[in-house]
């Protein structure tokens, strides 16, 4: 889509509009060709008014001076014609996300776009706003516009689309007629057939709840929506509990809230019965929580530090690594060496390597080594195998299972269906900030899981036992 809109350049292939091949080098070209785009992350200036946002780049002027009156008339006319309710003088930061999106749509219509691209438009909308958007899209289509609507949510595709083209891993899979294709069929095209890893996993008895989350609610930064909405669950000893969901449904914020990296609006977090909700990050760690973060560069590592310095990021203050404020370098070095050996971490200069120069896989192994070596009670691992090769992935899965076998609780957050199905003992599906299903991987199919993740299926909100 970025190629269509001129933000990126394609290496191969062609684009044709009305049968004519075209070259799109920048957004102005796209605009001239009447292609418009509503981005997933709105490109709106927070302190502009709605009117100013719509006319930016296409202003009507008289010798450089803005002529807002004519523009206003046109905008209001468009707004009425397509039933896009907006307030021209409101500031972007004050309006709802739904209205912001309508502003983005009006931007397209203001420049007379005929081909409208919507990139994951419902990711940030509430259910009511989604309904309104569906209506708007149908209205636009009835006026002769062409819409390319990117989504992975099957019920929305079913409701709004006429045809559906499925892409998987950058490759074209096929185009179907939406009305005659079932959701299961589309889900299978999206998800594909997979080769199961043979993961050795014994059944073991689960013990007491180690991590308990009660009514956790996290507010979104820039909208009124709750990104995490009244979530409750517990992770038991000897269990790998997986939070499965499509990216952007609140799982990241859920983890940040539990670990203390962002503030929570409501709710409690307990480890082995102790309320740690208000504790500082370090205390949570000392109380038995290990966190393998989603973004290894942002949270997990200090890239400018070397391997041994990063290996003690969570533990440098302990007596084994420092005395009276002076770092015991030998101890740190030996520790790093131990981790390197135990977890097979490869790097240009071993414990002296600057972490920035290590491969992603090995950086991740370092984080995992560090966090698991703390001997935590609960391991929170968020997309731990993202970007890694089979070998590293397999290794990490083994580690997590080993933790679970030792009686720890593992909270795994993942988008990889394989990982979710084969590694976890229990699956909680998160959709739009809420838990919509508590599933047993042995009893459901991948396709079913896909449906839950896409929001098409929900089970009882309460956790099953």
């Amino acid at each position, binding site marked *: 889509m970025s190629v269509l809109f001129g933000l990126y350049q394609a290496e191969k292939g062609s684009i044709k509009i009305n049968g004519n091949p075209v070259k799109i080098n920048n957004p102005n070209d796209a605009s001239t060709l009447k292609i418009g785009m509503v981005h997933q992350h709105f490109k709106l200036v927070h302190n*502009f008014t709605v009117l100013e946002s719509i006319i930016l780049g296409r202003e009507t002027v008289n010798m*450089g001076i803005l002529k807002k009156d004519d523009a206003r008339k046109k905008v209001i006319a468009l707004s009425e014609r397509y039933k896009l309710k907006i307030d021209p003088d409101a500031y972007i930061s004050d309006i709802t996300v739904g209205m912001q999106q309508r502003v983005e749509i009006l931007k397209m219509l203001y420049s007379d776009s005929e081909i409208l691209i919507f990139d994951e438009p419902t990711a940030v909308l509430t259910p009511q706003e989604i309904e309104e958007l569906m209506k708007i899209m149908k209205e636009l289509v009835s006026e002769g516009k062409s819409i390319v609507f990117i989504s992975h949510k099957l019920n929305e595709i079913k409701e709004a689309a006429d045809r559906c083209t499925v892409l998987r891993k950058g490759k074209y899979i096929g185009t179907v007629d939406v009305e005659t294709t079932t959701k299961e069929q589309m889900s299978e095209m999206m998800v594909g057939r997979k080769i199961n890893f043979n993961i050795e996993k014994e059944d073991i008895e689960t013990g007491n709840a180690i991590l308990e989350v009660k009514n956790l609610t996290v507010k979104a930064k820039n909208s009124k929506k709750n990104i995490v909405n009244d979530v409750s669950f517990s992770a038991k000893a000897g269990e790998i509990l997986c939070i499965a969901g499509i990216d952007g449904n609140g799982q990241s914020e859920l983890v940040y809230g539990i670990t203390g990296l962002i503030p929570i609006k409501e709710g409690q977090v307990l480890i082995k019965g102790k309320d740690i909700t208000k504790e500082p990050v370090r205390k949570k760690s000392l109380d038995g929580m290990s966190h393998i973060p989603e973004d290894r560069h942002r949270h997990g590592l200090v890239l400018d530090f070397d391997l041994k310095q990063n290996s003690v990021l969570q533990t440098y203050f302990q007596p084994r690594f420092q005395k009276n404020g002076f770092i015991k370098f030998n101890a740190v070095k030996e520790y790093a060496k131990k981790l390197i050996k135990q977890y097979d971490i490869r790097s240009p200069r071993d414990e002296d390597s600057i972490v920035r120069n290590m491969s992603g896989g090995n950086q991740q192994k370092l984080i995992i080594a560090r966090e698991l070596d703390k001997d935590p009670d609960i391991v929170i691992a968020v997309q731990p195998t993202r970007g890694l090769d089979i070998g590293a992935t397999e290794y990490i899965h083994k580690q997590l299972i080993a933790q679970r076998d030792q009686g720890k609780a593992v909270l795994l957050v993942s988008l990889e269906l394989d990982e979710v199905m084969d590694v976890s003992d229990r699956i909680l599906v998160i959709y739009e900030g809420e838990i919509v299903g508590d599933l047993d991987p042995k009893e459901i199919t991948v396709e079913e899981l896909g449906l839950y993740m896409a929001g098409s299926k929900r089970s009882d909100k309460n956790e099953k036992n």
Partner: protein
Amino acid sequence: MSTVYFIAQQTMYFAIPLLIVALGGMFSERSGIVNIALEGIMVIGAFFGIGFIHIFQNSMSGQSLLLLAVLVSALAGAIFSLFHAFAAINLRADQTISGTALNMLAPAFAVYTARMIQGVQQIQFMDTFYIRSVPILGDIPILGPILFKNAYITTYIGLLIAIASWFVINHTRFGLRLRACGEHPQAADSVGINVYRIRYAGVIISGILAGIGGLTFVVPTSTNFNATVAGYGFLAIAVLIFGQWRTKKVFVAAFFFGIMKTFASAYSGIPFLKGLPISNEVYKMIPYIATLIVLTFSSKNSQAPRAEGIPYDKGSR
């Protein structure tokens, strides 16, 4: 009453340069480029402006000479600011370091060149620009003595700049696009605006205004230029922050500091204050202490342009 007029007139001498330079900073920062080189640009502007006057004051005098000097200062400031623009925009360098380097370069350059050419550091000039009273306008009761007596034409230039700035930022296409570049350059880029070009414009405008500001600072308050503007460039940044990057508030802030500065240097002319046993130095400190206090309370809800200081890279999303 004459005291009040005196205060008002003195305030003009201090507030107007602050206003002009702060507005210059506003254009730069609202386009997304942090410009702490305003001090250096003022020095360069003053140097070339005063130098121009010094050279030509035997053949020209009065307002025409001053107006030409203003143009010279503006040009000098613009060219000097290009160094900052280039480093910040093309090379994506650290804008604070680039600004500091220019602040160091300017006075050294001024001293060096002055001494190499004329042997001494100070550049003298004759003040033939003093306006005792503007005909007709100076006789208006109250407003006359405040605005139109004991004035310089630079005061009126400053006020014009303020009005023009407000208009350009809020009512022109250029202003709208400039603001977009400083808040959300990706949004501007996505509608086809050339962020780099706009940012260059923002920095050059700051160069022009800071250059004029430097000249405006020296002319009413001295008869020579001594390679310094006494930290005014930095005070202007504080005014900008205090004014929350908005023209009207910057105007108020500039005058607030102007009054502070007036008390600091002209309090001996105010009978009431002269009597108090407060040392001269305390008065001089007041504008700076006031700045600190003001900033402490206004930084929490800063309305700083969101993208300022972050080099724009088209490749990153």
